[in-house]
């Protein structure tokens, strides 16, 4: 049986973790994602940029207590891709 190919953007642990967190909350800032994933600042920043470039998340630069703050929010395209990815891995597991 042929399986649907997995989305390479999401088939990465850190990017998948970021997307899972943003599916669960409406929006999350950089510190929140850092704390929950345990990633390094540099790696997290790189993966956020990749997700943003893919159009999966919206990134907004704001200020919080006079410090720059990056707020991420999942996009409709990202949500659709996430749902497709979850369905694909469930199909893998079923068969």
């Amino acid at each position, binding site marked *: 049986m042929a399986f649907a190919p997995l989305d390479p953007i999401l088939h990465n642990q*850190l990017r998948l973790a970021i997307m*899972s967190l943003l599916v669960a909350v409406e929006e999350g800032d950089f510190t*929140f994602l850092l704390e*929950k*994933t345990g990633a390094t600042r540099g790696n997290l920043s790189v993966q956020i940029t990749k997700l943003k470039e893919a159009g999966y998340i919206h990134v907004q630069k704001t200020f919080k207590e006079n410090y720059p703050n990056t707020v991420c929010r999942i996009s409709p395209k990202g949500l659709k891709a996430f749902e497709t990815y979850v369905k694909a891995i469930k199909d893998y*597991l079923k068969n």
Partner: protein
Amino acid sequence: MFIFASFNTIATMETNLTPEQSLRVIDDMIRQAKRSFHRISFYFLLWGVLLIAAMLAEYIMTRMGNPPHGASWGVAGIVGGVISSIHGAREGKREGASTAMDRVILWLWAAFVITMLITIVGYGVSGGGTPSGSIMVLTGLPTFVSGQLMRFKPLIVGGLLFWVLGAFSYFVDPGVITWLYIGAMLFGYVIPGYLLKRQEDGLRTA
């Protein structure tokens, strides 16, 4: 073999995820996110205590021969408003994420405060007597809905209690309303607020 021992693993590993590992990442992250809720028990405890104090002050002043003039409600409203605003601003700065439910609960209570103000001022202007019964009935709505949204039974029961005691208060002597009101605040706000605080503390440290 992949061992999901630390989230640091996520940061370093690139691909080669098995479907099981993918599902585990998703499941773990959603569990983590569920701990990122805004704490609201503080408001139930604060307002419960303040409104009970206001009602008792009003009751004592009336017993001492002073006509009820609503000063204690005004003081409670101002004190509660200031403390709530400061606490809300601090919590907002600390929280790094917000959920759709946080937003629904925020606007539900904001709408409730506006409705309450209109009702209380309306009663005052029209000379419609004590608004305690209407306040209890109105308070039942956001308490009950918050409880349902959070799936927290003490708040659901608290909301129901506000409605029952509020409805009952239209048929009893004004002196009894004071105690109905205090009972509703105690069992609808203070006790659920305390239980909610315990649950929030437990989830944060889980």
